């Protein structure tokens, strides 16, 4: 059989990017928008003054579930704070176990419940068993199961001072900065569907940039994007942002992006 070309990975928001005439490029096998017609400078400005929306579906997501979740996380991490309490978000490279290999860079770990965590990372896992299963196979940690849910969730990021204003138009849960500060996560109804909201602020020119990641079932992606765009108005503008601008606001994410299989540009 002839050699097959590398399969192309498209986010569920791909056609939105086409509609908005984004400049696309390949990262980790995914077609992602580098920027939209206005350009990265304008996009950064929108994020600093109002609200920018970007597609984060290409992020890897690994779910760890089961009564052994806490034990597993503790055995592969030396970070203080691991495994955390439900609702906490642990930032940065929380995993320190060399058995997991260098090709796997977590951005943050969300503790969703007493027996459930979600690891969000940049880059693609190599084919074969996922790192957690590798970590599990050699250890006496029982009853913790890892499932790669990268494909299950589409991801949208909202960055900017108007983030709370838009969020409060679409969810009935208290997401005010007081009750839902940076470093927290929660699951709730958003635009009438179930979503995971993760609050991890970015940083630009010394200033914190309010930033929220939303994860929800892939099939709803266009509907959620549209709902957010329609919730904006003349006073509260919502502007699309590509990864070029996004990486400037989130320097930690930029460091880890494009790992594994190189950056295909």
């Amino acid at each position, binding site marked *: 059989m002839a050699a097959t070309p590398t399969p192309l990975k498209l986010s569920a928001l791909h056609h939105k990017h086409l509609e908005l005439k984004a400049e696309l490029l390949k990262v980790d096998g995914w077609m992602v928008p580098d920027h939209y017609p206005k350009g990265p400078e304008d996009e950064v400005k929108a994020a600093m003054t109002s609200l920018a929306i970007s597609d984060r579906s290409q992020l890897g997501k690994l779910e760890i579930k089961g009564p052994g979740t806490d034990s597993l996380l503790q055995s592969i991490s030396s970070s203080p704070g691991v495994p955390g309490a439900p609702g906490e978000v642990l930032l940065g490279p929380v995993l320190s176990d060399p058995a997991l290999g260098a090709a796997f860079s977590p951005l943050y770990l969300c503790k969703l419940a007493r027996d459930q965590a979600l690891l969000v990372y940049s880059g693609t896992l190599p084919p074969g068993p996922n790192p957690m299963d590798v970590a599990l196979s050699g250890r006496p940690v029982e*009853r913790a199961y890892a499932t790669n849910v990268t494909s299950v969730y589409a991801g949208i990021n909202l960055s900017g001072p108007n983030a709370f204003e838009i969020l409060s138009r679409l969810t009935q849960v208290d997401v005010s900065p007081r009750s839902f500060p940076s470093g927290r996560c929660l699951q709730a109804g958003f635009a009438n569907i179930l979503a995971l909201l993760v609050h991890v602020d970015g940083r630009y020119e010394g200033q914190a940039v309010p930033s929220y990641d939303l994860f929800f079932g892939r099939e709803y992606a266009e509907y959620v994007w549209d709902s957010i765009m329609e919730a904006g108005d003349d006073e509260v503008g919502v502007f699309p942002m590509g990864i070029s601008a996004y990486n400037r606001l989130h320097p930690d994410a930029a460091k880890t992006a494009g790992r594994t299989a190189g950056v295909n540009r």
Partner: protein
Amino acid sequence: MISAYEGDTVASALYASGVRTFSRSFLFHRKRGLLCVSGRCPNCMVTVDGVPNVRACCEPAREGMKVKRQNGWPSTDTDIFSGVQLIERFLPVGFYYKTFINFPTEWANTQPMIRRLTGRGSVKQELARWNAQAASGGHGDRFEKQYLHPDVVVVGGGPAGVFAALAASRAGASAVLVHDQPSLGGHLRFEGDTVDLGSVEGAEEFSGMRGYELAAKLDRLARAEENLRVYDNANAFGLYESNEVGVVQGNKMLKLRAKQLIISTGAGEYLTVFKNNDLPGVLLGSGVRRMLALYGVPPGKNAVVVTNNDSGLSLANALLEAGVKVSAFADARTKVDTSSPRFEALRKSGAILLTGYSIKEAEGGGRVTGATLIRLDENGAATAGTEKSFKCDTICLANGFEPDAALLTQARCRVSYDEALGEFIPSESPASVQTCGDVTGIHDLRCAFLQANIAGLQAASGLASATKAPAGKLNELSASLKSAETAYRDRLASQGPRPIIGIVSEPTDGKGRKPEMNGFACICEDVKEKELAQAVEEGFRDIEILKRYSTLTMGPCEGKMCATPGVGICARETGRSIADAGRTVSRPPYLPVPMGALAGPGLHPVKLTAMHYKHLEAGATLMDMGEWKRPHVYTSVFEEYSAVRTKVGIIDLSTLGRLDVKGRDAPKLLDFIYTHTMSKLQNGKSRYGVICDDAGAILDDGTVTRLGEDHYFITTSTGNIDFVEQWLTWWAVAKKWEAQVTNLTSGFAAVNVAGPRARDLLRTLTDVDLSTEKFPYMASGSGLVAGVPCILLRIGFVGETGWEIHFPAEYGEYFWDRLMEAGRPFGIMPFGVETQRLLRLEKMHVIVSQDTDALSTPYEANMAWVVKLDKEDFVGKAALTFAKDEVPQRRLVGFTVEGEVVPHDGDQAFSPDGSTLIGVVTSCRYSPAAQKPVGLALIRSDLSADGGTFLVASGTSKLNAKITFVPFYDPEGRRLKE
């Protein structure tokens, strides 16, 4: 064409240009003009730019607005239907009921006419797309919602509300203040006198300035306060469980969930009941103050002021200052001190001062031309022979305030009548609700300041985030409040009784003739005082029943103008005190709210598969399946059908539910949920499974594939995934079994590649051995197909050789393209849901919830083979064990029909002689294989013998159906297993 100033409302602009008649009344089509000038009465409702029932006195005037008065024909100014008044005697209280109760047909015929004659604005379909307009409170083209969770919500933007919000916010609470005006300050905005807050600590910064200056200062302070968010032109329309406040602001609805509520909604004046009290030219005192101070529009040239409290004097002075002549000033109190400088000024201007007097009637045909005043005795009854008439064009009524306690009653506060104050005031309230200001019945700024600070501090003190107020501070404030309140009540008592509670009892004429009682009690519904008396006489003595029979308080004002006078009349007529007569209950919404605001932006989730755009590209017609969009058909059902039966077809099955089940007890859990045995399934094999409830009824079906010792992959039908996920996790929790269920539906795209050439096609894209030896029917496998990692299941829903291929959704479009490209030499065609339905029907494959219902057991559906009663307990085992030995009530049968007419899904089945309904057709299509219509039906089991017949009623046809249990295509299932 009318010109207006910035800050004008539609009402003030119209009034300034000379308009006096704003609407016609509901029933009698009497002329109505401005009355309350604060959105609390029905008189000024107009249609603005097509939007009906806009309260002109609240709506800011905007460039280009088109305003239309709503009722009256041919015009509001000359309305011929005011002739209804000529037959008034035939329209007594409850006349709809009395006239039509025995003549329902006549009612059906008369009702449309009555609807045209009565009522207010009308709604047009085009309103669905209004033109967007600027300014908050404007009527834009979309509805919005917002959800906030402040620590404290303050309702009411008068001085008390602002003081309370500042106190709470400065103590560290996050606060939201909602109020229905464009700026804060409440009645202070039209108060020209200097305000004095006394020597209370903290009040210095607010004393020594005029009322409107204090209002402006409060507005500035509130907006500058960091933890306080102010919503202008916002109406709190209801209070719901757990301190949820519903607020509507133009097109936006806010839902506020507060830990603490402060209700400072103030008090409103209500209408006095006397003959012709509804004429244009009769205004409430506070309405006149607004017109003078906020809009600079004098109500007229010559006024008569009728009052029973201190506000009347301020009102009269304000009129004089604006150049309006005051012909007479009637104060019902006998002990009021008329020697003060302000009374002097009034006297000097030529006004006749009358104490112990009130109003008997207003004169005029379509507007006020005069007023007749009358003296009251110590019981508040009018004394015949003491009438004094005055010419005037305006009558100002300042006859009492009613605390706006609607939200408080919804919060389960007690509201009861205070004899000394002459008002219904809130008494007890739950711990999470505070009150302050005029709503408490105490109309004194000093008291309001103290009450507000106590309320704000108390509200904040319950919160973890706030700084604790020193205990001494609250006690100090409470002590000050107590003495200030006592001083207020004493002063009130010293002024003598205020006998009027909204009504002036007409004098008897000494000859035993009953008073006429022609005054309007309820101006929304045109209910006169005499009608209430009549209703009481008919036996409707309880205020709640009286309300419902007469429709008092049931119009747009919802009782703001008429609740207290109505109670007063009821009390008088039934010989009870007002406290005993009680009060009607106030329910949300507090004011009319647009349905669109309640509905909000209409967020209806839509689910798209990963191949959605490929279907659009291929020209598919889409259909809705729950929230999913699926291709119904691409080209034609017959073309697609032929491709599948003779070549190869591909269908998008991404909508199927998919669950990953892992864990030590996963086999046990699945054995318990499914009627079949899953623990004995071999690795790499699939099995069809049915889930039943404990009544033995089928809940769902799907396939179970074993991927490992403790690892299963389950598919469910499209609409049932959420339910099955909940069902599995519930049983795992209830049984305390260790099994992890992960919903992977979203993560996979899936296709079914089916047809005699399916294997040939797939062989060009994968190294997986697809031969029947290595990959038999009902086996599963995994591997790369077109370079994409896949799970393959060999299942045959459509009756041909085929594979269900599940793969990560992000490859959707790529995979579809590769398959279509590779399939071209084999004649591949995409097929839609409609074709799939036909294909499976020819095989008699059951679709759960199409061919089964909420009561169908596997026995009824000819699926006895999936029920393994010899295994350990499972859900439904007991019920199915009982059912096994009984004859099922119904049975699912296959059938064919002769002729051209194809029955529809849902057509009814009758016994062969057509006499008895015996069941229903669940699915039916024309079958190319059988060359006739075929289908499935659920019918009475005693008539379900193989070869039997029944009748199908389809439209106007009666069709003969013949029962068969042999599939209409490939009955032995050979094609499937090739």
